[in-house]
């Protein structure tokens, strides 16, 4: 009753792997894009901002379809990756991670950007007068100060990845052990006669997983806030 079947643990393991990789892979891009949107003024900034937020408002199926068109074996980017780097995304767990990363990107971007907007640029200027080059300023001043925002963004994106269904199933289909994450597995069980009990087990697992992520991030966030706020830890 309390132990997971091999199929369940496979789905759980896959979900965690996909969510973790999607967060790790999208983090540098989210921080870089947040910095660009927060600090640079250029024509078309509003448009870029809007495009970055598209996954938040588009039906996930649409995102999945675009991914398939762009990153499929024959797609312009997918063909490039396959021919020159030997990377295949379509119908692989890496593709699921990409789908999750894209869907979670706006959430991560917003969180990081909000904390970047809140950073006192005077502190960065002060660090520069003390001899820190822009890269050092970013590493030793900006980054520590936006750490709470980064953690929040990572959590939101991680949670989004655990729940991502539409884009994943459209882009990488439903292959047990390769792309069948928890939500996809739950969906599969609900489509099979008599699969209700198994679906329920996976649902409970999902709830526990999300709660766990929330607790861990809350703990990290509190510590980061204390540091960034300058109080003694």
């Amino acid at each position: 009753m309390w132990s997971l079947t091999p199929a369940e643990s496979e789905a759980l393991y896959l979900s965690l792997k996909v969510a973790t990789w999607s967060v790790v892979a999208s983090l540098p891009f989210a921080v870089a894009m947040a910095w660009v949107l927060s600090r640079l003024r250029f024509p078309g900034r509003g448009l870029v901002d809007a495009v970055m937020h598209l996954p938040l408002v588009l039906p996930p199926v649409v995102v999945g379809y675009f991914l398939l068109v762009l990153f499929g074996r024959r797609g312009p980017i997918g063909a490039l990756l396959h021919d020159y780097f030997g990377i295949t995304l379509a119908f692989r767990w890496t593709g699921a991670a990409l789908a999750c990363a894209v869907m979670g990107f706006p959430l991560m971007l917003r969180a990081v950007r909000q904390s970047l907007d809140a950073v006192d640029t005077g502190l960065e200027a002060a660090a520069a007068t003390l001899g820190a080059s822009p890269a050092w300023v970013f590493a030793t001043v900006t980054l520590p100060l936006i750490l709470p925002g980064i953690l929040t963004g990572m959590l939101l994106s991680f949670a989004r990845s655990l729940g991502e269904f539409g884009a994943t199933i459209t882009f990488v289909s439903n292959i047990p052990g390769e792309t069948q994450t928890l939500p996809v597995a739950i969906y599969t069980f609900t489509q099979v006669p008599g699969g209700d009990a198994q679906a329920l087990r996976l649902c409970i697992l999902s709830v526990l997983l999300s709660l766990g992520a929330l607790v861990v991030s809350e703990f990290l966030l509190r510590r980061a806030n204390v540091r960034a706020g300058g109080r003694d830890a």
Partner: protein
Amino acid sequence: MLEFDARCSLGGFALDVAFHSEGRVTALFGRSGAGKSTVLNLIAGLARPSSGRIAVDGRTLYDSAAGIDVRPHLRRVGYVFQEGRLLPHLTVRRNLLYGRFFARNGGGASAASLDHVVELLGIGRLLDRRPAALSGGEKQRVAIGRALLAHPAVLLLDEPLASLDAPRKAEILYYIERLRDDVRVPIVYVSHSLDEVVRLADQVVLVSDGKVRAAGPVQEMAASVALRPYLGRHEGGAVIEARVAGQDLESGLARLEFAGGVLYVPDVDALTGETVRVRIRARDVSLALARPEGISILNVLPGTVAELGAADGSSLDVRLDVGGAPVIARITRHSAGRLGLAPGKPVFAMIKAVSLDRRSVGYA
């Protein structure tokens, strides 16, 4: 030492400032919003002029004609901001050492040691705290120390006392004075307080509406007409440099000798033989045609009228030549007429000793 000549416009505010200073402490003096902080930002490279030339100690930091624009982190300026701007996520110790790390990487000049700076500023107890746990005065001292430890070629102090209450002000002023005499780094000091300027600066640059209205040594400037509108009607006056000839412990009076004679001033915080600057407010000086007898006023100085200022309502400023030193008296127009004052006329200037308090005196 410091050459500055720059023009820039920032959101409707146009700045066109040029000055040159060889002083140890150059004060940028003027009202809030006059462009003083912008000048510091231009020196530090945090703002960019549209044209001009900025050089510190012969090293060009910016020159539009030669296409030189040294990036801020390579300029080696120690900037002490009005709000301190300590890094909130680092302890005081790591804040202090922040700049030194980069100075070492860049092969910085002779090291001001952490121990020395900590001792100079009295911040030893604070090293393991975070900025949020510091008082305003402590923050400013740490900010000054942090700037010093980055081995700056010039120290920029932007109203470091503005956010502090009077006792803290006196405390930081004392530390800045020690700094000036201890550390051989030119200082640019932005202030709108004449007290601070007189106590610290050798050179004063008067800035208003983004332009230099007057510039020169502090004694000249304090007596100059240009500065008068910026002082308020009660603050105008002259500054004289004097030597402490003796302290009378029993009466609490110091005997200060200067070119024009002897001044008795209470509670002077200086040793015999030291040179101090005394600011004598014009409204504290009264005039007599003959040496008065039987009065309480200790300081009676013979001099001649050098210039009668323009009338300002019912009063006017009379500039006196007291043995070569300038003294300004603010008297009513009525009295000036009654005494028949005119340039060249010998008079006696009377200054109550109690009107010269500790705030009027600073080390030269």
